[in-house]
């Protein structure tokens, strides 16, 4: 059929120009992801949305849907890759969920729950990273940043250009566009999309931690493949 792809044998129609991720979302099929967000052009960094397209691993967010593609998504072998990628995201930072304000509404954690991850799988790096608490209304905890680049894209879109990713490989890190290199002398505000869009507890508004009791947080009752991305729903955007 014209303009149809198959995801795990299920026929999915697409409009030309749609990525596999977009076509899947429109059809209600969950492809795990962290750096993808429907409001921005895809970045392809987190690698979680790797699917097998006609036998080749490619990221669903950066690959256009093309008629006849046979796509393997929610299979044990693909999810095994995703588990490793997610485990690496955890051990390369310092993710102390028991003390994190984002816990329960964090997309990294939610993806890990979806994938059934019980253990780190790799040796913890325990990197030494700072917390930037210099701004009165917004904090940035580098320990939890997964370099998804969403704040960079959102800040460009809202005309403030506050962030970029600097360095390469293991040295890659988020940098702040201000004279001191800290948040304190930027024009950021807690209501900026750049803050709201952070999928983890890295960029957070201050003074409102632990707002929802355990049991009532975004991912407490239902998994991310059912309730969606906290950073799209809380800002009122739909796929």
């Amino acid at each position, binding site marked *: 059929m014209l303009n149809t792809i198959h995801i795990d044998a299920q026929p999915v129609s697409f409009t030309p120009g749609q990525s596999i991720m977009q076509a899947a979302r429109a059809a209600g099929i969950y492809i795990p992801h962290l750096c993808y967000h429907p409001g921005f052009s895809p970045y392809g960094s987190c690698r979680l949305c790797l699917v097998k397209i006609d036998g080749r691993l490619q990221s669903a967010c950066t690959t256009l849907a093309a008629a006849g593609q046979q796509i393997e998504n929610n299979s044990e072998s693909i999810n095994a890759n995703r588990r490793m990628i997610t485990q690496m995201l955890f051990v390369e930072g310092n993710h*102390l969920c028991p003390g994190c304000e984002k816990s329960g509404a964090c997309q990294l*954690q939610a993806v890990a729950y979806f994938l059934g991850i*019980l*253990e780190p799988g790799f040796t913890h790096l325990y990197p030494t990273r700072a917390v930037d608490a210099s701004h009165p209304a917004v904090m940035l905890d580098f320990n939890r940043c997964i370099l998804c680049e969403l704040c960079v894209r959102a800040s460009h879109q809202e005309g403030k250009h506050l962030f970029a990713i600097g360095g390469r490989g293991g040295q890659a890190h988020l940098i702040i566009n201000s004279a001191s290199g800290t948040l304190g002398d930027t024009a950021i505000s807690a209501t900026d999309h750049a803050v709201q869009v952070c999928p983890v507890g890295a960029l957070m508004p201050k003074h409102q931690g632990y707002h929802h009791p355990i049991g009532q947080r975004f991912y407490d009752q239902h998994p991310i493949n059912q309730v969606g991305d906290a950073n799209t729903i809380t800002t009122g955007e739909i796929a």
Partner: protein
Amino acid sequence: MKTKLKVATTSLAGCFGCHMSLLDLDERLLQLIELVEFDRSPLTDKKHLGQCDLGIIEGGLCNTENIEVLRDFREHCTILVAMGACAITGGIPAMRNNFTLEECLAESYLNGIGVEHAQIPQDPELPPLLKQVHPLQEAVKIDYFLPGCPPSADAIWQFLQALVQNQPVRLPYTALHYD
């Protein structure tokens, strides 16, 4: 009747919260002791570890004694379980990993708020601290991981039942959490 599983438990660099969660089994503890017999555990106060089917460990590794106890458990237990965030990731105690040991000791015993008679404890009975806190699987092989801070009594119950009945461990969505 099937012989009871022998179970040992201990808390290393943890807060005993996981053991409190175990006690939270409440009346199910009565069912549990029909199925298992406790060897060394804070629940029995036995000091020496015998040969066990199952060892359950709370807390990570922060000093040399923790490593000794962990190795003893690995040697004596057929199945070893890391229970809770600290055992699996180092947890809250691992927050000190971003500081030197000297800085941590100075903050706690010399310069901290409300410290009197400032001195760093040096009793030979105190086991030396490790430079960093580590999870269990970085020192010995761990067979099962039961995350949570602490894992709920329900999660512990389902986990134990699966193990006792030799079934694969599958936690329902609401029982799997890292906090």
